[in-house]
């Protein structure tokens, strides 16, 4: 009888530990997102989850790519040298592709400003044509 009670106690402790663990997993999953919160629209909505998954510069860059119908684009130093921004922008902007192009996506106050022609701007990101 004592043994059975001990086993039941042990199982209850383990299950409680499991529940606490899942609570911690949930909390940690939420904190992994950029907004630290659940999405505020239907999970099936067209732009759902963009702001919680991607930095604003990447979202702005994609808006520029779409607005200017760029199929191939180049990137400025800021996006080339930062693997996080580089990969996020390339996968988010797909099917537009990163490659050899006169159209450069760069920061509005970046090094392209002085040597290229400005085409369009979205907050702190711009499209330039460089010859």
């Amino acid at each position, binding site marked *: 009888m004592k043994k059975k009670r001990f086993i039941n106690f042990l*199982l209850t402790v*383990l*299950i409680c*530990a*499991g529940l606490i*663990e*899942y609570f*911690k*997993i*949930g909390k*940690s*999953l*939420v904190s*992994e*997102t*950029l*907004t630290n919160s*659940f*999405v505020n629209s239907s*999970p*099936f*909505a*067209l*732009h*759902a*989850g*963009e*702001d*919680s*998954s*991607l930095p604003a510069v990447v979202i702005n860059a994609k808006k520029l790519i779409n607005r200017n119908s760029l199929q191939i684009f180049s990137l400025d130093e800021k996006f080339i040298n930062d*693997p*996080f921004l580089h*990969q*996020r922008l*390339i*996968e988010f902007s*797909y*099917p537009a*592709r*990163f490659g050899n192009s006169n159209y450069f996506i760069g920061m509005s106050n970046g090094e392209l400003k002085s040597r290229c022609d400005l085409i369009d701007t979205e907050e702190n990101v711009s499209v330039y044509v460089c010859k």
Partner: protein
Amino acid sequence: MFVNNSIDNEEFLPALSLNALILGCLVMWAFLPPSRLVSIFIFIALTLITLIALRKFSKQLPLILFLLFGIIFTLGLGSPNWDARSIWLFHAKRIYMGNNLYAQLDNYAPWSHNDYPVIFSALAATLAKAVGHWNEVFPKSVLLLLLVPPLLVCSALFQQKILMVLFLTVIGVICRNNLFNGHMDALVAIYTCAIILITIKINKALVDSSSEYIYPTITLISFFSILILLKNEGLAVSLIVLLLTFFLQKNIPKLNIIAIAVSTFALYFILWKWPVHTANIETDIMMSGMLQRVIDRLYSNDDLQLILDNFLKYSGIYVGIFLLNFFRFGVKWTHLALPTLFVISYFGILFLIYLSTPYDLTYHLGTSVKRALLTINVVLLGTFLYSFVNPINNFKKED
């Protein structure tokens, strides 16, 4: 305690149906990409089979709660995780937008590991097709559908609800965020554990020659086929488990094991490895100079210690818990030969991979070892729990 050692074929049927649909979906993408209507049908069928499998509400309550938790967090959150985005979801997006399973084989964005297999990505692309567009939330939720078959089988094999609750607790403790953030490592770990448990079960059931084992055998083929197409690690796991089964699980006919191996590897090579080979895409770990890197690191005590320290740090406690089994009355090492030798072999392969890595060792270990060891840890604790389903006197039948 009453323990049923024979095989109830019906218990394998839902997992087998789900696996068949998932594999069918991949084959469809390879030869004739599914239309939107077909994609909707696939998801309705997958959901219905899952619901039918979970209809025994009281028995499946732990699994139902686990899946509800998964639905809340996969459909409620964005997908910010680096590897999930850069590899698996990016491949899915490419399949969906290119309407082509092999879209990534043009090797655009090589950092996305274009040689990695695509069963998760193909399923996510199918869901995107069913919904009608791509976004940053719902595609990763298909990993729940991939989690259902092995968990259904585990639920059937553990027999008692309490063991399933403990198994789900163990999975949570070991896999943590990797369960729901779009990584494949937890899936590989759970599939491996399910495969090892099914193999032990078939081997045990075949002591009684009247047992029918056709469904578990076909289920095993479907599990191996999905595992191998989840991630490159699945190939190593499948090779080890099949070889060990061939030599250790004496009750399973050798011809069956060969049939399982041939069907699994044929599907993998036809659907994935051959197209990757013809596209000349290199696996990063196989880059030239592999042997020299292994030799250099073997002579470096610091490197060896670094690898072993990491193994001990992330798997030590689970190895310790598993070893407790050997102190139970009547348990011989042969009873636990399959999981024990699997763990030793997989440790060996991981050790070799880290010795040969072209990347900085500290960086490579830091970014991957915790996830790579999930398979070992889940197998250790999964088989530890399973040994409570099979009391010692049942082991004796095998001797």
